[in-house]
């Protein structure tokens, strides 16, 4: 027997035959250019949006609740699924927060490898952003081009950790593996070609009449608005605030590398696009320097990959296999989990999308008492409430595109 379908329209109480010309348009939650599961309810006056109401939560998977029920190391793969375009940057944010909580210093080689992974992730994320935004606006070629380069980066990451998308490549206290032999050479070969590729995209887009019409002076975020909405990352820098956590509150080895922070005071879609492109160049510039640093660590024979802290971090595999005490420690750490000190910590890092912060409240147990994930995209989605009114329907797509939101991170 076929049961009656009980689904009813969401807008039962809204009448569409109103006296004025206002119409309500439902956009999503399954829309190809919503970058995931965004639902927008748009009030329209002709084609002009008068009121926008973003509805999120269609990918809420309860990560904060999971964190309260998982030991610290167990939570690491879950962070992968937040901003799944650049997984390692989430791994890193979490690892850094826990390291700050227990007061751990990571060996230099591990720091270098982490820097490599972070910047490769930034490149991956920006290339993906370019691909999808260009596709949404209609530039299919750029989508295919950018995905081609992204696949090379995926190969690099795969060489390192074996996964393409969900890396879990960073551990609390260091990194699990050293770089494979050909990694640096492959990366250099890719980076040598990258400026040429970026120029290809720019040739296709920069002077493209359609691209400029849909990007210039569309979605202008003023400085006050960006600050008030908690925007970070390229969203903030496109609005004239030169704030990059890598530069202002350096973590890892960012104080040792040289790079520029691109800023624009226009605040429109085109400014954000230019900033993404420039950041890709800067990431490549950082990667060259970090590659040199890695070779230096080989020369100086700095081989440690994990910090030495028997209370919190397992000993290297060779010790576990040969020494009784290390084996016992490892067993306790794996079955019961580490017990960080009582206290709380909020650690921000600059993920490709903006400020990714982890707030951890530990009560001395093996499970965090409260873990709050501060994901940049959450507020970049919220700003659509104020940003969309006054724009036309086609602008919605390009504005959502340039805010670069990822729903794993918005809804967590």
């Amino acid at each position: 027997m076929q049961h009656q379908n009980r689904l009813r329209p969401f807008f039962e109480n809204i009448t569409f035959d109103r006296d004025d010309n206002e119409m309500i348009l439902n956009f999503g939650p399954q829309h190809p250019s919503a970058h995931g599961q965004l639902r927008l309810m748009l009030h329209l006056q002709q084609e002009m949006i008068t009121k926008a109401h973003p509805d999120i939560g269609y990918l809420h998977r309860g990560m904060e609740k999971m964190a309260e029920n998982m030991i610290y190391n167990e939570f690491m793969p879950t962070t992968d699924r937040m901003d799944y375009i650049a997984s390692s940057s989430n791994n890193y944010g979490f690892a850094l927060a826990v390291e700050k909580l227990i007061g751990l210093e990571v060996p230099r080689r591990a720091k270098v490898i982490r820097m490599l992974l972070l910047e490769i992730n930034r490149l991956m994320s920006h290339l993906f952003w370019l691909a999808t935004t260009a596709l949404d606006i209609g530039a299919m070629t750029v989508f295919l081009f950018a995905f081609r380069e992204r696949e090379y980066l995926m190969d690099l990451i795969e060489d390192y950790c074996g996964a393409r998308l969900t890396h879990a490549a960073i551990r609390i206290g260091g990194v699990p593996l050293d770089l494979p032999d050909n990694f640096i050479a492959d990366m250099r070969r890719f980076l040598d070609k990258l400026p040429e590729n970026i120029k290809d995209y720019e040739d296709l887009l920069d002077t493209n009449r359609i691209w400029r019409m849909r990007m210039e002076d569309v979605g202008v975020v003023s400085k006050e608005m960006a600050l008030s909405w908690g925007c970070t990352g390229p969203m903030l820098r496109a609005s004239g605030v030169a704030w990059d956590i890598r530069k202002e509150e350096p973590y890892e080895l960012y104080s040792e590398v040289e790079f520029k922070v691109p800023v624009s005071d226009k605040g429109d879609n085109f400014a954000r696009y230019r900033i993404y492109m420039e950041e890709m160049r800067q990431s490549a510039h950082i990667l060259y320097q970090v590659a040199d640093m890695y070779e230096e660590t080989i020369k100086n024979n700095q081989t440690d990959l994990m910090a030495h802290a028997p209370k919190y971090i397992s000993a290297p595999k060779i010790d576990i296999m040969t020494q009784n005490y290390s084996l016992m420690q490892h067993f306790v750490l794996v079955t019961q989990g580490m017990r960080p000190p009582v206290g709380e910590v909020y650690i921000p890092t600059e993920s490709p999308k903006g400020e990714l912060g982890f707030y951890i409240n530990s009560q001395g147990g093996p499970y965090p008492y409260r873990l709050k994930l501060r994901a940049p995209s959450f507020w970049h989605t919220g700003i659509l409430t104020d940003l969309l009114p006054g724009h036309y329907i086609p602008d919605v797509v390009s504005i959502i595109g340039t805010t670069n939101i990822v729903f794993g991170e918005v809804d967590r």
Partner: protein
Amino acid sequence: MRAYTPKDDVQAKSYYTDRFYVSPQVAKQDVSSDEVFAADLEAIKAKFEVLEAYIQVEQMVVYINAKDNVDVIKLVKEELDYTQLSEMSAIDWIAKSGQFEIFYQMLSMGKRKRIRIKCFIGKDEAINSVEKLFRSADWSEREMYDMFGIEVNNHPFLKRILMPYDWEGYPLLKTYPLEGDEFAAWYEVDKIYGKEARDIIGPEIRDTARVDRYDSERFGRLGHEVPKGTKITGNEPKTPLAYQEEGGVFMIDRFDEEKSVIITDRNR
């Protein structure tokens, strides 16, 4: 007799803790050790009551009274140059003291400093909204209401944000189990097919250790696939790398590994 399990906190607990284990503390410095923070604290203290203040992991933590929250944040924003509200949320301490702890994580880009303003409210009390000062609090407060059920006064649109509007229960409370309650377990079935379909669809399988022997055998047997329902003897011959039926497919040429060229150099 069945062992008693506390109902006020149903989150995972460690199954063994050394009786004599005393957990260390993350070091707290006095606020006077940092002159920028000391000046900020003086400015707050001049107008409002500060219950406690210290520096932990390079950030100042200030405890204030819950009724002062809007005024303190206004002062901090307008006079002390903390221009961004990075994050705000709550912590559930109901099992311990019947209170929620609410924290506001602020950032000053001019001073390159971060402070955390905290306050406690009782279980059934409401907090005043700071949405007028920071638009970002609009969504944060909605999320807090959604996850903890904390009511926010003067909020323009206090509705659930992450969970559906017709959801029951507040997921981040310590009394709420990770796997959800009865309502959560049947939510989608009730909504789409109705309550009478529960028997047909059956309960959710939440046991992560559950292994269906036949499922797992088929799962792991790439290259030894058998049609559904076939009895598995374990002696199935390995099917070579071919994705088509025996005898070929109409108008489609069969993939032949021998005749293919393998490209190894990706920069070819």
